[in-house]
Every structure is written in C-alpha cells, then in structure tokens.
C-alpha cells in the first residue's frame, strides 16, 4: 500500500503518567462498591462507635454534662492507651466486615467477566492491578481505623492538656502502626483467598472460615493435645496479642487470658507467614489465563 494512502493513525495524544494508572482499577472498584446501598449504609454504620467515643470523651471532660446527666465519672474511666486499644480493635473488626463484604466481589467480577485479561493485556502489570485493589481496601480500612483514631487522639489531647499528649505521644505511632498492620494482613489475605477461589460466595465463606472456623480448630487442638501452640492457627488471637503489644497494654489487664499466652515472637512469625503465603498465592493465581474453545 502506498504510504500516502495510509490514513490510519495510532493514538499519539497525551497519556496519563504510568504510575497513576493503578488508580483506574481503584476508582472503578470504588464506584461499583458504593452503588450498593447496603454497602454504603454499612460503611456509615462503621462510624457509629467513633461518634459514641467522641460523645464519651466530652462527657468525661465536662463536669457540667455529668451533673446534668446525674453521673459522676471517677478516674477509673480514664482515657488511656487501653481505651484506644480497645476502641480501635473494635473499629478494626468493623473494617474487617467492610473488607469481607467488598473484596471477594471486587475480584470475582473481574474474573467472571473476563476483565482481568483485558486489564493485563493493557500496559497494566499484575502488581499495578494488585496495588489498585489493595488501595481500595486500604482506603476503606484507614477510614474506619487509624484516621478516626488520630482524630480522637487530637481531640483528647485538646481536652485533657496537662501534658497528657506528651505522655501518650507513643500512641500516635501505635494507632498508625496497628492500622497499617491490620490493612496489610487483611488486604493480602483477603485478596489472596478471593483470587484463589474466584467465586464471590465461596471466597466470602473461606474468609469467614479462616477467621472463625480456624480459631475453633485451634482451640480444639489445644484442648485435645494439651498444648498452647494450636493458637498459631487462631489469627484473631495472634493479631490481638500483637495489638496489645503495640499499644503497650499491660498483659495483666488486656483482654487476652494472661496465662498460657503465646510468646510474642511466634505471634509475629505467624502474621509474617500468613502475609508471605498470601503473597505467594497471589503470585501463583493472579494470572490472565483462559481456555476458551470456539
């Protein structure tokens, strides 16, 4: 064909920067998620404990309100590291439920509609795809865990003064660290399980199984074999251990049984193993393979 006759041109207009492309995946996942009214309502509900916490803070710091309500708050109800630890632990589980509702569908849709192949044959690597999906979970979890945590910390510092903030400065680190630990474990594990089984329902069931059935198995293990090591299968327990360490909660007052607890190193090792296995699974299973016979 003569060169002058060639009128077809490939697109050579401006491109968005390559590093930002994962955002496309994230954006569309978000818009699909919040199309569901139930999910939106549920997300709202996740902030309810935070509002209660704020109200609580005000009541504690306002003798006037206490008088009006006819209660007297002793010093036993101090807001301290334990208070933050427990509040954020509760929030973390809220976030867990959000992620359980969101993750399997987010992945299974891409598999079911053969979208994964399309994503990956564009200049979007598997890693970018993953980062896109993880960022969705990270944003959701951040919004219900460490961000409100920091706001509450600021509010408390404001209300308390007298060097409270200075004494508890480490809590900033605890809040952020615990938040991101949770995000890392939850997002990797849930994505790995979702990518592995591909079906939304099965993946949701599997996630719940890992978090609730496995602990039951772990306790049975301990009871029958008279040991404590079965607990390494009990992910909530292990995470709780680490959580209380991060918040410097005195083991005697934490809500984990003081006797017979696992040593900290094994808790960290378990979490690390879970993350590594998840990463390995993702590497194995997140592939754009398809067999279609015509």
């Amino acid at each position: 064909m003569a060169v002058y006759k060639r009128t077809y041109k490939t697109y050579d207009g401006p491109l968005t920067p390559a590093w930002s492309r994962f955002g496309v995946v994230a954006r569309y996942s978000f818009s699909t998620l919040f199309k569901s009214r139930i999910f939106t309502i549920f997300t709202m509900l996740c902030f309810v404990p935070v509002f209660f916490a704020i109200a609580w803070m005000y009541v504690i710091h306002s003798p006037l309100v206490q008088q009006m309500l006819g209660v007297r708050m002793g010093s036993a109800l101090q807001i301290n590291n334990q208070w933050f630890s427990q509040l954020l632990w509760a929030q973390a589980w809220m976030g867990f439920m959000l992620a359980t509702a969101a993750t399997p569908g987010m992945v299974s849709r891409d598999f079911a509609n053969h979208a994964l192949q399309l994503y990956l044959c564009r200049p979007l690597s598997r890693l970018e795809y993953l980062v896109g999906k993880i960022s969705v979970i990270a944003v959701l979890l951040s919004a219900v865990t460490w961000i409100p945590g920091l706001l509450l910390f600021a509010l408390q510092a404001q209300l308390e003064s007298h060097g409270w903030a200075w004494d508890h400065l480490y809590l900033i680190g605890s809040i952020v660290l615990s938040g991101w630990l949770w995000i890392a474990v939850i997002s990797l594990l849930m994505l790995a399980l979702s990518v592995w089984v591909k079906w939304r329902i099965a993946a949701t069931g599997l996630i719940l199984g890992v978090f609730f059935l496995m602990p039951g198995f772990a306790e049975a293990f301990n009871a029958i074999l008279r040991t404590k090591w079965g607990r390494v299968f009990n992910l909530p327990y292990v995470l709780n251990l680490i959580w209380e360490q991060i918040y410097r909660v005195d083991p005697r007052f934490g809500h984990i049984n003081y006797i017979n607890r696992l040593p900290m190193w094994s808790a960290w090792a378990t979490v690390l193993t879970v993350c590594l296995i998840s990463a390995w699974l993702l590497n194995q299973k997140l592939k754009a393979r398809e067999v279609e016979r015509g």
Partner: protein
Amino acid sequence: MKQLESLRTFLREAPWHFWTTQLIAVMQIELKKNFLRRRSIWIYLVALAPVLLIGAHAIDSPMGRRCNIEEDTRILAGIFQLFYLRLGIFFGCMGLFTWLFRGEIVEKSLHYYFLAPVRRELLVVGKYLAGMMTAVFFFGLSIFLSFALMYGHFGPAGKAYVFSGPGLGQLMSYMGVTVLACVGYGSLFVALSLVIKNPILPGAAVLVWETFHPVFPSMLQKLSIMFYLRQLCPVPLQPEGLLALFTVIAEPVSPWLAVPGLLVLSTAILVFACMRIRKMEISYLAD
C-alpha cells in the same frame, strides 16, 4: 371444610410415584456432585479435622496413660459443642446448602432444572435432602470416629465406659443432635440462598445471632437453632470465662419440646424457601 376436602383429594390423587422417581433423580445428581467433585474436598477437611486431632492424641497417649476418662469425656463434650456444633456443622451446612442453588447460578446450569417437568418445590426438597444426607454422613461419621478413637485408646476401661457406662447413650445423643443441627441449618441456608445474592454475609450475622442468643429475651431465643440443640447435648460444660455466656441455659426446655420445636422451625423455613423458588427468574448476571 371445603379446603380440607380439596386437600384430601389432592393428597389422594397426587402422582406420588412420579414425584418419587423425580425426587430420586434429583438426589442422585446432587449426591454425586456433593461427594465426588474435587471442590467438595473442603468438607472432608472441615469434618474430619477433629478426628485427626483425636487420632494424634490416641497415639500420643496409648491406653490412656497420660489422661483419664473423665477429662477426655469433658474435652469431647467441649469439642462437640464448641467446634462441631457452633463452627464445623455451621460452616459445613453454610457451604453445602448455599451452594445447592447458588452454585448452579454461578455455573449457569440452574435453567436445566427449571426447564424439566419437575415442580420447583420438589427441586428444593430433593436438593435439601441430598444436602442433608451429605452433611449427616460427613459429620456423623466424623463424630463417630472421634468418639471411637477417644474411648478406644483407653482399652478395656474405655470399652466399659461405652458399653456398661453412659458412653453409648452419649454417642446416640451426639448423633441425634448432629442430625438435628443439619436439619436446622440446612433449611436456613437453603432459604437464605434463595433470597440473597451473597448469603454468606447474612450467614455471618446468623453465626453471631446463634452465638449470642442466650443474652436475648426468651421469646427471641426460641428463634435460634442453637437454643434447641444446646438442651439436647448429653454432657454439660463447665461454664468458665466467656464460655459462661454460651453455656448457661436460662430456661430449660424438655427434649419433647426441643425436637419438635426445631423441626417445626425448619419446616417453616423450608416452606418459605419453596414459596420463594416459585417466583424465581433465571438471570445469570455476574453478581
């Protein structure tokens, strides 16, 4: 009176033989799926995990050298209530029974059933029965093996406990409770899977409900499957710590009430499922 009469005619003239044939065909297809497919492997794992543990224990302490019967009986009771009833059978039934219909929708094969001259209600019943048989087989077998290993490794003492002591009766009770649990949870999850696209999340809510129902008023408690089952467990658990909440029975109910109560509850749920499926449409949109 007239309605009663028409019901009588219906019952007399219904093509029972034809329905039975179809029911058996549905069950055959479903049973094959439940037992033989590679995807069913998880249920083998969930059901048989405690057997492995108890097997390990039996090897670890031959002839009960490092344990005693009372303690092991208590442990078995704990495992039955906390692992089997609350988790294993719950999750097992959740997986099995939601997959009965949801699985067909995911695999886009439900229309083959809907295009057969089979009453849709019959389909629900057939699938439910097949699920029941699967669940009862796996968990019944698992409990039987657990029991056998637990007392078997005591040698003659264990034998005495089982055959001249309370052992056999306990085994029967365990089996009975297992069957009832499958009946109850099975109907619940079949119904849920016909109502909601992703029945696992409400399933989790049910788990929370079943776990915490003792703290609710007794009227509401009766709407929980665990309420009936707990009363039928043969060996009471010592309440300690958080477990106290789950093991204390506020208002005991006799087995003569608990069993029919549970059956009535399950039947009602199944009837609801049958009503739902009549209105069901096929549309395999990606969910």
